[in-house]
């Protein structure tokens, strides 16, 4: 599908996709996870994915709790393991559209091995990793993506460990589709997610989210708006080419579609009729 960037905000009513009886939701004011969720549901709407045929598998964390708000088949699994559960579900039920929602800790620390192998297998599903640089749910501990020198409850003198680039990791492990986006422009994020949904194989999207209440406060990064603006400033949108991006350095995290390969999907090879050894 050639996804034309467009804004269908008028027709799209996010409330139709949500379990409104669970409101008020648990997210802190300004939390970036909310925008990520909105973008995801908007992408579902525009790609006309049936909520009955959708299966959302999430891990444990603030990110993992998002699943419950989606009016669909939702599976809130164990910390770090949503990709493992999703692999079983997707293999058992090829008719379902499987989407994984995970956090930076969930996906890259405790669940890192599952991510690597999910990329390698290239089984059809989409993994949305909400990267807020911190363990939000447990009160703000360091994560594999916490920027150098940032303060967290377990790096009281600043973070001295190197940072993971999850997209490079996913690409190296063989993910068929890799993308990254910030939450500042929800339509842009939505368009990226739409392409990930549309890809036949394992698609990985890193969504740069912001934990305003804990990480933002601890590091005096300002309110949500300021955090999002500085996230945007620290990225280098691929689509803008090389010249315009100069001002965005020295932390040029690439955004947009970073990988789209023609690798065969996990089930593309058919061994039916073959003799066993």
């Amino acid at each position, binding site marked *: 599908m050639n996804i034309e960037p467009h804004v269908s905000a008028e027709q799209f009513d996010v409330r139709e996709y949500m379990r409104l009886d669970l409101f008020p939701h648990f997210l802190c004011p300004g939390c970036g996870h909310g925008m990520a969720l909105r973008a995801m549901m908007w992408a579902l709407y525009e790609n006309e994915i049936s909520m009955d045929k959708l299966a959302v598998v999430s891990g444990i964390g603030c990110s993992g709790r998002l699943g419950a708000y989606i009016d669909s088949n939702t599976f809130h699994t164990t910390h770090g393991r949503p990709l493992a559960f999703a692999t*079983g579900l997707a293999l058992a039920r090829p008719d*379902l559209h499987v989407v994984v929602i995970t956090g930076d800790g969930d996906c890259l620390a405790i669940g890192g091995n599952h991510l690597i192998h999910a990329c390698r297998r290239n089984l059809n599903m989409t993994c949305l990793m909400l990267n807020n640089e911190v363990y939000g749910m447990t009160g703000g501990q360091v994560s594999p993506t916490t920027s150098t020198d940032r303060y967290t409850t377990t790096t009281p003198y600043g973070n001295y460990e190197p940072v993971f680039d999850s997209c490079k990791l996913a690409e190296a492990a063989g993910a068929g589709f890799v993308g990254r986006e910030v939450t500042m422009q929800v339509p842009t994020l939505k368009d990226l997610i739409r392409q990930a949904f549309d890809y036949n194989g394992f698609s990985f999207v890193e969504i740069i989210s912001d934990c305003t209440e804990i990480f933002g406060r601890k590091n005096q990064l300002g309110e949500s708006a300021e955090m999002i603006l500085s996230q945007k400033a620290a990225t280098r949108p691929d689509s803008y080419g090389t010249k315009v991006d100069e001002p965005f350095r020295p932390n040029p995290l690439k955004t947009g579609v970073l990988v789209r390969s023609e690798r065969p999907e996990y089930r593309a090879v058919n061994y039916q009729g073959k003799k066993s050894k």
Partner: protein
Amino acid sequence: MLAIAKRKNVQGNEACALGAIAAGCRFFAGYPITPSSEVAEGMARELFAVGGVFVQMEDEIASMGAIVGASMGGKKSMTATSGPGFSLKQENLGYAAMTETPCVVVNVMRGGPSTGMPTRPGQGDIMQARWGTHGDHPIIVLSPASVGEIYSETVRAFNLSEALRVPVVLLYDETIGHLMETIDLTPPPPETIVERKWAKGDKDGFLPYAETDDLVPEMARPGDGYRVHTTGLTHDERGFPTQVPEKASRAVERLLEKLDHHAELIESYEEIDCGDADVVITAIGITARAARRAIKNLRAKGIKAGVFRPITLWPFPEAAFSKAVEGAKSVLVAEMNAGQLATEIERICGGEPGVVRLNRIGGEVITPAQIEKSVEEVLK
């Protein structure tokens, strides 16, 4: 169905794979580990023929997650492992118990703890099988003692798991797993194969964890329009997290009561010559077979001994056991560990009759002669 001769000489682990296929298992995820790998190898071969899915995952945590995921999608699912892998599976096994997702976990016991003795038999996971995952949780553990019984108990494991929406562990020692015996592989009659109770009624207001008379709620199949939320968090009848004390306690109570309510269906044991026995030997797996031989020899010498063998190990068949040991002077618990089943037996007996332990942990099986000697000492 599989094209197999009805009587065949097969290995215990292979019988497990064949039993699973016969029970309707159509998804297997695993990770190689001695002495269980032949179960995975059997499934890799057999599942293909019946259009099922086999996947070797990156570790045991992922294997356990994958079989629960596949079961949530509606497929009867199984994994197989041994000690170290069984430890890794525990968190997701608890998730299956909490979310009431049927699945079968095979643990072929080797010597432990830790890496222990990979190629030697052990029975050191009796307590882990019951209490391996955290929190109060329901679980059924079956302990076959022959190749034929591995086949039939694997089928029963699936039937119980599907009927009661509870994870079932099939627990046997390496010796039984690697034993070759000629067994009857006639598939169980189709009408005896249990299928899960799928939700069929009203979608509006459907309560995925409703209190029903049999305490087993109907399961909603994703794609059927029920749009259910599944979580390992303590949840209410709607399936959403709750911290209301009454609802939270009821949620766990029902899980535990569910097994009590179906005790008759779950319970299974073998009792040999316990009626007039002065000493009743309690054992599982290969040790129970040594006990069987031992009582024959003892009776030939005029010593009245019997065997009580739990086939359903957990929940332990307490009432049947109590009855079997009523007139006995002593109970001898023989097991290849430092004394695990013995603690449960001591609790049940409460001093009457007295309990004597026979333990062996070096990776060697307990022999009939050792059991006979222990019985003779008890009666001295």
